[in-house]
Structures are given as C-alpha cells and as structure tokens.
C-alpha cells in the first residue's frame, strides 16, 4: 500500500542541490500541485531534468522564475523566455538534448544500460564532447544514462499498489522517469483500490512508485 501524501510533504523531500526529474510536455502531464509546492518550499540549486521548461507562470517555469535551478537538462526552452534570459546571463546552465536522446538517456538510467548509440545529432553541435562510435559503417553518438535523486510525476490514476495509468498526451516522459530516480512521487487524479486496474492495463508498475499525491482533477472537455 503506497502512502498518500500532500503536495507540501512531497515538496519537502526535494532538498537543496538535488537532481529532479519532472514529467510533462508543455505542462501537459506535469504534476502542477507538487511543482507549486516545491516553489513554495523553495529548494535551491536544483538540477532539473525535463522535456521543456513550460511557461513563465506555468509548470516548471515557476521554478525557473523562482531561481531554484542551477542547471537544466532539457530538449526545448522556447516556450519560456525567462529560461533563455537566465541562460544568456549565465544564471542557469542549460544543456540542450534532442528529445529522443533525452528519452533514451532516462530509459537507460532506469534500466541499467551504460548508454545507447543514436544517429541523432551526428555532424551537429550536439556531437561536441560526445563519444562517436561506428557500427557497421555508420557513426552514432553515445548517449549516457541519466538518473535523478527524485522524480515528480503525473499520472491519471493509480491503485494503492502504485500501479499507474496515464491519459492521452499526458503520458510523455512520466513512465520513463518513474524508472530512473531514487525517490518517485506521483500526483494522480484518482486513487483506486488494489485490483481495480487490470494487470494488462498497467503502464507503470507500482514497484517504481514511492508516494502518491492527490492533485486537482482535470476537467475533461
């Protein structure tokens, strides 16, 4: 049985200097109640691993605005000008990673792989500092694993065993990050009893989940 905690309790587990993965793609599938609490609690010097930095007043963009970040590993910052400004002012280190590579790095971190070879980024600035490995005459970049101290995720429903199901485009990076952090906290819209999710329909098994948080229920249509 997973413990259900408040957003504030979740946020207190995010401590200064930690690496933090946050699910979501342009705030869809972002655990906004937990992120808001992290902003309130004010942890500093965080390394954020995330698809994008949301918007200045939405999602992890609030963490950017609140100067909580030392570094961001991210595929896109174009929807949040503040990230770009802080990058140019050297207030935040921004490591830009192709989205598919970021997904594989997190998956590798969660599944005990030493890395994957991707053709993406060969011959571009992404190649700088990377190992190039040739397989059957084609060059690939070695993408090494990414893990985090804590993952803050969003799912549609969980059962009390922590099994998760996701909804539509809100799935994105959430199932990957669930495998790749020491502490996994998941904001959900609904918590079901054990047995209410069929084993075949589970997307993320409960063994990956440490705590559940009840977020606000999304309005569907």
């Amino acid at each position, binding site marked *: 049985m997973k413990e259900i905690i408040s957003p504030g309790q979740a946020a207190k587990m995010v401590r200064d200097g930690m690496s933090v993965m946050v699910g979501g793609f342009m705030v869809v599938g972002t655990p906004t109640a937990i992120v808001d609490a992290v902003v309130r609690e004010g942890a500093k010097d965080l390394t954020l691993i995330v698809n994008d930095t949301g918007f200045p007043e939405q999602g992890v963009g609030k963490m950017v605005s609140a100067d909580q970040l030392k570094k961001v590993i991210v595929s896109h910052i174009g929807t949040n000008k503040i990230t770009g400004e802080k990058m140019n002012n050297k207030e935040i280190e921004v490591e830009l990673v192709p989205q598919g590579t970021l997904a594989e790095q997190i998956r590798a971190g969660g599944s005990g792989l030493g890395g994957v070879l991707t053709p993406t*980024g060969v011959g571009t*600035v992404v190649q700088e500092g990377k190992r190039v490995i040739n397989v059957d005459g084609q060059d690939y970049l070695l993408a090494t694993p990414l893990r985090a101290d804590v993952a803050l995720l969003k799912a549609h429903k969980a059962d009390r065993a922590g099994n998760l199901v*996701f909804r539509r485009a809100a799935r994105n990076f959430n199932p990957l990050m669930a495998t790749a952090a020491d502490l996994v906290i998941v904001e959900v819209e609904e918590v079901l009893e054990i047995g209410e999710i069929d084993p075949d329909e589970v997307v993320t098994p409960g063994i990956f989940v440490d705590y559940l948080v009840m977020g606000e229920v999304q309005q569907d249509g």
Partner: protein
Amino acid sequence: MDKQEKRNMIARRVAREFKDGDVVNLGIGMPTLVANFIDGDKKVILQSENGFLGVGPAPEPGQEDPDVVNAGGQIVSILAGGACFDSAVSFGIIRGGHVDATVLGALEVDEEGNLANWMIPGKLVPGMGGAMDLVVGAQKVIIATEHCNKKGEPKILRRCKLPLTATKEVDLIVTELAVIEVTLSGLLLREVAEDSSIEEVKEKTEAELIIPDEVGVLR
C-alpha cells in the same frame, strides 16, 4: 500573394507528397497547416511526437480535452484507431524509420541536404526539441518554407551557416516559388510557381540549381 496565401500554397503542395497509408509528422508552424490540405481519399496517419498517433482536427468548442494537445501545444483530437505512448516509444517510432514523412520549417537548407532550423547563436536558442530526431529518422524529410527570409535573403544556400539540425537528410524543399528536390548531384528544380519563373527562382536561391529539360508548374 499575401503571407497567408503563400503559406496555404506551400502547405497544399506538400500535402500532395503523401501516399495512402503514410505515417506523417508535421512540425510546428506552417507544417501544421498541411493537415488541412490532405486529400480525403488518402488515409494519412499523423503522429505527434509528444505521444500519439491519429492526430485529428481541433474539437468543437466545449469539447476540448486539455490532455490532447499536439507538439506545438495546440488542442487537437485523437481519431478512432489512434494510439498513445510514452516519449521513448514516440521517438522509437521516429528514429526507427516508421514515420514515412516529416514536414519541417527551415532557417537555412543547402545543396547537400543539410538543414538548420533550431537556433541562431546569440539570438534564438529555443532548443532542438524533437527536430533532430525527426530529420534523422523520417524516411522523407520535406522542408516547407518561404523562399527567402524576412530580410529577403535566400534561405536555400550553398552551405548552411547556422548550426545544423542534421546533415544530408533533406529530400524535398517546397516554397511559394518552387519545388526543389535534393539529389546526390545537387538541387534539382522540379516545379516553378505559375506567377514566377526559373530566373526568379535562380535569383532568389544562393545554391546552384540543376534545371532539367522539363520543369513542372507549382500550383
């Protein structure tokens, strides 16, 4: 032609490249427009790299689902027969060659099929998002772009100067003036717009163009 007419013309021409059954990923901006012009007789399956296949049109007002957005953040719908997945699967589909065509914009594109469309150093650094994977992974890379940039300078160059998105991956360039195929010998002028001319296209293109005996009409 005003800007919107140009964009529609480009989108309409790009849409004719798709075959029945194709899986297509449309980039943000003008490429998204292409969906409006796909022939209803062709079953084209649109992929959205944030995690689903079967992208449908924006729903009726009041029917919007906040979890159903495309990679540009616009509220869309998922057609019956669609499928949702995580980002690793999504880019497995893309990188694995399961996307038949992708349509993307360009800052610059060149004779070798190199593409620059993700950053302008010191100015605009939004990040590559999924663009690098799409350009490397899709079977056919179609660039949908205005022929020249806002300053009137050519975007189709001998060699890209901006940081590249990928090398030697572009297959076709569609602008309001021309359709240009990237071949191993260079850029082959396939079609010229009705109200333009080979001369105008050459003048507005920095890259060398191969002019075949027969050049079609872009409409």
